[in-house]
């Protein structure tokens, strides 16, 4: 990956990272989108999309409700999408499933770290507001603009840092793990798919398995099974 690629991926990581809470909450940070864009930057959008689909199963659990702490999937998804691609000959230099598992694990860890980093940004915003209380109470519009602008800068810095962590040390560790893999690739495959499907199924169960939505969930699973047999 060239320095230009790193810069491009980090820039996209900032865009999708600030999207989560700060601006504009258009869901560009969802893994389905962010990893696809990361893969596209790296020249392999289809594999970006593949890892994005897997990460999206984890993100289905995330409800960005109010002041609760939740993972930030955007920056690590962009990085994972950029890293998960075959060589120029179209063949993966590292075993496919161990490489996917290690990148998904890195992305999950960085997403989890992103929730804590967001908490730190919100606390920093709070401290800045306390410092500007007199101006705010006097109705000074410059205080509002300054607080909004610095809030954005803090969040952009957080997103850039998360993207770089996932891309550089994260990518290195994932590469080492995949290179050192000795067990059957099936172990990696089953682990990543059980974890992803387990999180998504548990989220669906928690949200929709009670009351009126339960029968719709069952109908959806039935339709999905039929669809998987016919098309997927």
């Amino acid at each position: 990956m060239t320095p230009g690629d790193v810069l491009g991926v980090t820039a996209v990581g900032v865009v999708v990272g600030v999207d989560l809470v700060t601006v504009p909450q258009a869901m560009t940070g969802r893994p389905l989108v962010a990893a696809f864009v990361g893969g596209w930057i790296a020249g392999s959008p289809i594999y970006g999309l593949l890892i994005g689909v897997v990460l999206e199963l984890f993100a289905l659990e995330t409800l960005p409700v109010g002041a609760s702490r939740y993972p930030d999937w955007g920056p690590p998804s962009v990085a994972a999408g950029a890293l998960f691609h075959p060589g120029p000959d179209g063949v993966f230099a590292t075993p496919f499933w161990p490489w996917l598992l290690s990148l998904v694990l890195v992305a999950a860890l960085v997403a989890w770290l992103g929730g804590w980093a967001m908490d730190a940004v919100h606390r920093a915003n709070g401290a800045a507001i306390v410092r500007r209380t007199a101006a705010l109470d006097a109705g000074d519009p410059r205080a509002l603009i300054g607080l909004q602008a610095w809030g954005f800068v803090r969040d952009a810095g957080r997103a850039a840092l998360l993207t770089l962590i996932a891309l550089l040390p994260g990518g290195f560790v994932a590469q080492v793990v995949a290179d050192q893999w000795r067990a059957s690739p099936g172990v990696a495959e089953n682990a990543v798919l059980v974890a992803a499907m387990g999180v998504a199924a548990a989220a669906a169960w928690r949200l929709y398995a009670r009351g009126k939505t339960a029968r719709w969930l069952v109908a959806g699973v039935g339709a999905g099974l039929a669809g998987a047999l016919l098309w997927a």
Partner: protein
Amino acid sequence: MGVSLRAIPGFAVATARLFGIQSAFSYERMLGIGFGHASEPLLRTLGERDGGTPYRAALARQSQFFNAHPYFASIAIGAAVRAELDGEAPERIERMRAALCGPLGALGDRLIWAGWLPACVALGLVLVTLGAGGWGAAAFLVLYNVVHVVLRVWGLRAGWRAGLHVSGALAHPLLQRGLVIVGPLAALAVGAALPMVLGWVVRRGLAWSFVWGHALAVLVGTVLFVAVLQRLRARLSGLGLAMVVMGAAVAGGVLWP
């Protein structure tokens, strides 16, 4: 005041600022700073009165604590600005802001976070599994954001029209209908997406003859995962358990003799 909101100078700027309402989110004032920031362009007409004292007082009021779903906060902003420009008593405006927090938060959580968002994501996933590729992701973004943008803009105008009587806007037939439809829609879409994604991902990584055995193993593992998570729910999130499972697999895979 019978003035259209569009006729108020600063309408376009205020609308744009709605999208950054959480930029200075904090645990002390939550969305309060963004609320004041988005209101400010619409309150500027108060600057012409009494040397700007009403403008500054209104801005200070609108920057106090406020918490709601970010998309639906625009309803409260429109209503609060209208009340300020109509010269309503500050206590009534503050009471209205406080009273709107709970209902607007609950409405957004049900309609968007637990309904429209998972429904659109699941639809995007299904489209990808059907061969749409990146268009599946694009379809998700477009579909989701049509409702997102309409809600923000409609909310500002609905709040403006209603002023202090804004609670009526929450009973809008489309919102009520949406609340009835969106839960089943999301359940159906998420339910359909899970098996289709499993089939699609497995086929991308393996020869077709191996699919069924692996799919069955994953299915059994998934049921076990959900059962364990149900027991540990109070102590561990789904992501936490997933990291434990994947971490154990990585350790085992690397240390395998």
